[in-house]
Structures are given as C-alpha cells and as structure tokens.
C-alpha cells in the first residue's frame, strides 16, 4: 500500500495523470471506487483482497474521461485484461491509461502495449472457488435441470441493468435493449424479456468477457450472471483458441473465422 501511495503521489506530482482511479475505504468494511486528483487524497487509496471490482468500467464514463487522459487505474489482473480488450476495441489508445498493478510485491505502472499484453498473458483471471463450484454444478445437470435452474435464477431479474452498468465492456451508447425499431429485447422484465436480455448479453460478451465477475458482484438480486458470459467465453476459447484481453490488436472472435471451424452440428 505504501508503494501504491508513493507511485500515486509521483504520478500526480509529475502531472503524469489527471486522476487515479483506485479503491478506498467504503461503508461496513466494503471498499469503494475513489478518484484521486490531489496529493492529499492519495492517502485514501487502499489495496487489499477486498479490491475485486473492475475499475476499468470508469474509463468509459464521460465524466471521468473529461478529466483528460492519461488516467491511472489501480488494476487487478482482470482490469488489465479489460484495458487491453478496450484498446483492441478502439475504446482506448495506448498511453491513455497508466495501469497500476501488483507484481511480486511491487507496484508497477504499465503503459506500453508490450507491458500490458505481457502482464495480461502472465496473469490469468482466477475464479473464486464458489464460481468454480457453480460451473461444475451446472456441468453435471441435465438440460432440463439447467432450464429449471436458469428459470429460477432469471425470475429474480427485474432488469435494473446493474450487470450492464458494472461491465466495463458494455460501453455501447445505445444498448441493444434500448433499441426499439425493432424491439429486439422486450423491455418488460417478464420471463421472455429477461431471457432475451441475458442471452443477448452473453452473446455480446462472447469472446470479449474478461471474466472479472463484476456483473455478479453488482447484481442486487444475486443471479450468478457471470456464468453465462463465462460459458460463452469458454466456447470461444475452446473452439477458436481465442482468449480476450491479451492482445491489443486482436480482432473479435466472432467477426473472424477459420475455414476449419467445427461444423459437426451442421447437416
């Protein structure tokens, strides 16, 4: 933490960044995102095991962007991958972000493409045990059981779109769910509308999801919503040997193809 404070101090003092997005103490032992713009405020930064939420989401927020690039972000491995993916998707440029990461007990600032990519490659996102348990559980289910499972889970959804808002890769200015000509996704949070929303979310994040889990953390009604995008990313990984968030120049897995992609299911 001391190192982080030193680094942050240095960045602000040299005016190398306009703001440092980091974690600060929140309420009831939670951590909350903080935006450090002054040297005095640097002391608010904390960095421990509670700091799991993906702060890259703020890089898409106009109010934050208004501070001006470069912006520093206190980053978990997932955040780094997210930033790489955002660069690949032309939402950020190299140099826009100073990525603060922990590596072997030191705090490093990554800016260059090679550094970001190398760190992203060497630091995969690790699922918490309960996520792995849930994945295994679903794997063992029959298709009917899975349907019941998801119907029960999705029935909780009242479409607050916290999953969308918390996802750093949901940066569309007009989400498909807000498109009404035609109405691709029913607005109402009835089972059909909820199903449509979640299948679209998963499809849209297929091959893009960094698996940071922010959506699940954000969901106020406790739907294990990341499982869908994790599954989508799993297929993409397994079928197309494509891992998002490790290559600043990678095209999307779903807008590219290989002539020998699997087609055993096609008659």
């Amino acid at each position, binding site marked *: 933490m001391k190192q982080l404070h030193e680094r942050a101090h240095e960045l602000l003092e040299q005016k190398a960044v306009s703001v440092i997005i980091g974690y600060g103490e*929140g309420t009831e032992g939670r*951590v909350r995102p903080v935006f450090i713009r002054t040297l005095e405020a640097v002391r608010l930064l904390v960095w421990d095991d509670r700091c799991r939420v993906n702060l890259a989401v703020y890089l898409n927020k106009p109010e934050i962007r208004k501070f001006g690039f470069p912006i520093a972000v206190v980053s978990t491995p997932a955040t780094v991958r997210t930033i790489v993916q955002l660069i690949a998707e032309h939402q950020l440029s190299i140099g826009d972000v100073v990525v603060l990461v922990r590596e072997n007990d030191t705090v490093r600032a990554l800016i260059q493409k090679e550094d970001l990519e190398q760190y992203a490659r060497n630091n995969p996102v690790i699922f918490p045990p309960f996520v792995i348990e849930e994945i295994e559980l679903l794997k063992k289910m029959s298709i009917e059981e899975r349907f019941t499972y998801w119907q029960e889970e999705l029935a*909780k959804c009242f*479409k607050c779109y916290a999953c969308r808002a918390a996802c750093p890769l949901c940066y569309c200015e007009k989400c498909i769910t807000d498109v009404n000509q035609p109405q691709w996704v029913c607005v109402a*949070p009835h089972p059909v509308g909820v199903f449509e929303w979640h299948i679209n979310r998963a499809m849209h994040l297929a091959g893009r999801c960094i698996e940071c889990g922010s959506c699940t953390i954000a969901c*106020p009604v*406790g739907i294990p919503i990341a499982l869908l995008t994790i599954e989508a990313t799993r297929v993409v990984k397994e079928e197309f040997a494509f891992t998002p968030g490790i290559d600043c120049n990678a095209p999307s897995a779903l807008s590219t193809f290989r002539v020998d992609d699997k087609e055993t299911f096609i008659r």
Partner: protein
Amino acid sequence: MSHRTFTITHENLLDVLTNTIAVGNRLVAPVRRGKKLFFRDVQEVQSIVFDFIQSDESPKDLVFPRVEPMLAHEYNAGNVYLIDFAEKLQPLPTILFGTRPCDAVALSLLIEFFNEGVGDPFVEQRAENLTIISIACTRADSYCFCTSVGVSPNDSRGSDVLLTPIDNDQYYGIVLTEKGNAFVKKGGDNFIPSEPKDVAQYIVTLREEFTPQEITQRLANAFNHPLWMDASLRCIGCGTCTYVCPLCSCFDIQDEGTQTKGVRLRCWDSCGFSLFTLHTSGHNPRHIQSERWRQRVMHKFSYIPQNRNLLGCVGCGRCSRLCPADMNLKEHLCTITKEMTEVKADR
C-alpha cells in the same frame, strides 16, 4: 377478541400462518434465495426468515408489480377490440407477513401516491386485498436511517398488525386496522389478549443524524452545488437503488405485439438510467450521471416534500446496501446537511 393488543408465541404464530394458507389466502413473507432475502409466496411457513435486518428486495411489487399488463388490443377486419385488465384483475387476498415497519410506511405512501387524484385501479385493488403484518426492528445496521427521515423502528403507519418480538420467543402485537383485526380473529386462541405494554426496551435505538426539515431546507438552494458531481463520480448508472427502493414509483409504458394484436405493459423505470429523460430530439436534460443522481435525491428529499409534505424515503437503506459502487445515501445526506450550509443558489 376485543383487545387491540395481544401476545403470541412464535410457534403459534407459525400455526396461524399455516392456517392462513390452508384457507386460501396468499401468504407472502421473507425467504432466502441463495444469499439474498426476498418477499415470496410461501407454502411452507418453516421457510420464513425472521432473523434479518432488511430484505434485499422491497415488497413494493405486491401493489406495484415490475410488469403490469394494463390492456390488450386486437385488430380484426377493420375493428379494434380492447381488454381492460383493470376490470379483469382479481387479486387474491394476500397476507404480507414479516415486513419491517419502514416498508409498511413506504407501502402506505406508495398506495397513497398512486391513488391520488383519479386513482390507480391496479394498485387500489391490490392494496384492498393486502393485509400487512409487520415486525418491529430489534436490530439495525449502519445503512439504516429511518429515524432521520421521520420513521421509527416500530412505526405503526401502514401496518395492519405490528408485532414486536419480546422475551421467551413471544411477540407482542398491536392490531391497527380492520384488516388486521380480521387476521387476528382468524387466528383465534393463538392470540392471547394482553394489556397495552411499553415494549420500547426491545426496539432498537437509532441515532437521528439529521432531520427531514434540515435536508429539505439545504436542498432548496443546492441545485448547482459541486457536491453532486463529486459524490456521483463512482455511480455507474444502474437502476439498483430505484428498483430495490420501496418508494420509487417511476414506470414506463411498453407496447408489445404485432400489427394486429398486442398488450400494453407498465414496467418499472429508473431515473438513474441515461435514457430516462432522453427526448426524441436527442437532447437529454439530464445528460450526465451526476444530474441523475441529483434528481433522485432532490426528488425524494426536496420535490416530494414540497408537493406532498412528506419525504420520498423511509430510510430502509436498501439502496446503499446493494449499490455496486457503494453509493451510501445516509452518508450522502449527512454530507449535504454538513457541507451545503453556505452555498447559495447561483443560478
């Protein structure tokens, strides 16, 4: 039973609730789904959760459901046919059990809001069939701030029966309305008449951080205060706070269907969404998140009080507990009362 006050053991209370279901009532009570606590239809009273501070979802969709079909329409060979769901609606008699007093207050305010003026037949019919049995709070957490917004942990407003857990696994109850009376009557001997008691010792005490008047007063001139931007920087613009709020009542009318047949739905909406106030022209009067956050606070603590002489908040703390970005309303309101003192309107 002639007394308006009674005691009942926990076991007997469960028996009463079981019986309620048996005679065809719908029982809605707090139950767990995973780590979260919801109000759900209950078949087995054993699943009811008693030990909690606050549920994750508010019980508001018992009167104001997240999706409400309002009407259906059909076009056939030049004629249009309409079905008004308000006429078709036949809500089951429903016992809402185990709400916190703040939720009961909120529900009463919500119903009052919808029934103002011409009235809302959907909310009205549901409210008529709803009996609210609330349980006073013996515990609270740092997110709770009912006392600061004029509600108390054993507030009786809105409840039909108010229970207070007392010693020996017993509840002390007050019957507050006719509906409450009907409920207690059906419970027969399980309810033991009792003299009115002071049960303050069982009720949690919650420090009053500020007064509603203070907030309303401060906000009156605070429209352009920089605090809105600072406080809402971390807001990600989801609808969690509004959807879990027992009082938020904004909705969106949606038509679903085809050229010939369709249904009109009333769905929840949130002032936190960027599209909430988007005009067809592309102009958005509240174009950044801080303005939306300000709207939410101003609406609850300034506009509603101005128009209706009450707050749009009961201090249940759900919005803060569930906020993915840890936007803490109580903390924010405290800041407002402390920091907005000197700011004058600069418009």
